[in-house]
């Protein structure tokens, strides 16, 4: 790794530390470089979509399915993930064999602020805004920064 890359990685870690002061380093692992071309809503889909920035904003260049009402509330995102990926609401984020889960966070205005995806029994994954992808030990470690989880969703694992 060249010195430039090392500097970039250190700066990137510093960015996460600065932006997520409540996120203990022992609770997450950085898994990618910064990328401002896709977001957590895309990353939550399948094994992590990185080909677009999903947003209900009506600006060309942002993706939102035509058959899903545009909006920033939990109900809009439940509709989004049901329509696009077959997720249904569920009660909790506990690991269930044969299922994969999403966690939808809301901010103080009750608008969706973040979505995290369960990877396996021990890990969740999140794309942090325009910053990096991380694995984190549970969905709740991001609540101090993104607000409370308002809804969990689940669907059967493909080929399960």
């Amino acid at each position, binding site marked *: 790794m060249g010195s430039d890359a090392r500097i970039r990685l250190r700066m990137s870690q510093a960015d996460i530390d600065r932006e997520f002061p409540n996120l203990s380093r022992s609770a997450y692992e950085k898994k990618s470089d910064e990328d401002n071309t896709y977001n957590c809503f895309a990353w939550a889909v399948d094994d992590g979509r990185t080909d677009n920035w999903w*947003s209900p*904003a009506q600006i*060309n260049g*942002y*993706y939102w399915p035509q058959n899903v009402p545009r909006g920033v509330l939990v109900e809009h995102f439940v509709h989004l993930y049901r329509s696009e990926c077959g997720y249904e609401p569920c009660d909790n984020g506990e690991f269930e064999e044969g299922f994969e889960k999403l966690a939808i966070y809301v901010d103080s205005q009750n608008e969706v*602020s973040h979505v995290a995806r369960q990877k396996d029994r021990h890990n969740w994954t999140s794309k942090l805004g325009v910053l990096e992808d991380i694995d984190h030990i549970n969905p709740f470690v991001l609540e101090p920064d993104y607000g409370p989880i308002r809804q969990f969703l689940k669907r059967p694992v493909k080929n399960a």
Partner: protein
Amino acid sequence: MNYGTMLIKDIGAAAHAVSGNYSKNQVIDEIKTSGSRYGGTYMLRAEFISARLFLPADSIRTETEFKSLAERWKQETSKLSMVHKMAMHPAYQRIIGMGPKALPFIFRELATKGGHWLWALTAITGLDNVAKPEDNFKRATEAWVQWGRTHGYV
């Protein structure tokens, strides 16, 4: 002929700042033909440097203000995923409020670093068809950079 050097990172923006005895196109021609570029430094005839010094303040102020606002916006929105939250940030709104003066700097950012400038560009130019509805974020960004190039901003 008396030559001097002047640091120019953006020909369009520099030329935009010059007024008085020279038109924007005259200054662009002068910059493009006046000599070699060394890491952003051009050789210019002294009279053009004087011309720029005569009225550079507006452009320099605009660039300084843009950089300050853009840096603040990036730092304070980097963990957000909702575009409307990013665009409603006061610093981003002030950049939109700068109007066309901000375009050279927005396009420079877009061409070199990418980023979420589609909202601001749509708001400032009033154009909502530069990028197509089917474009993903990367293609939309490329479409805007091409538009900026065509219109002399890049």
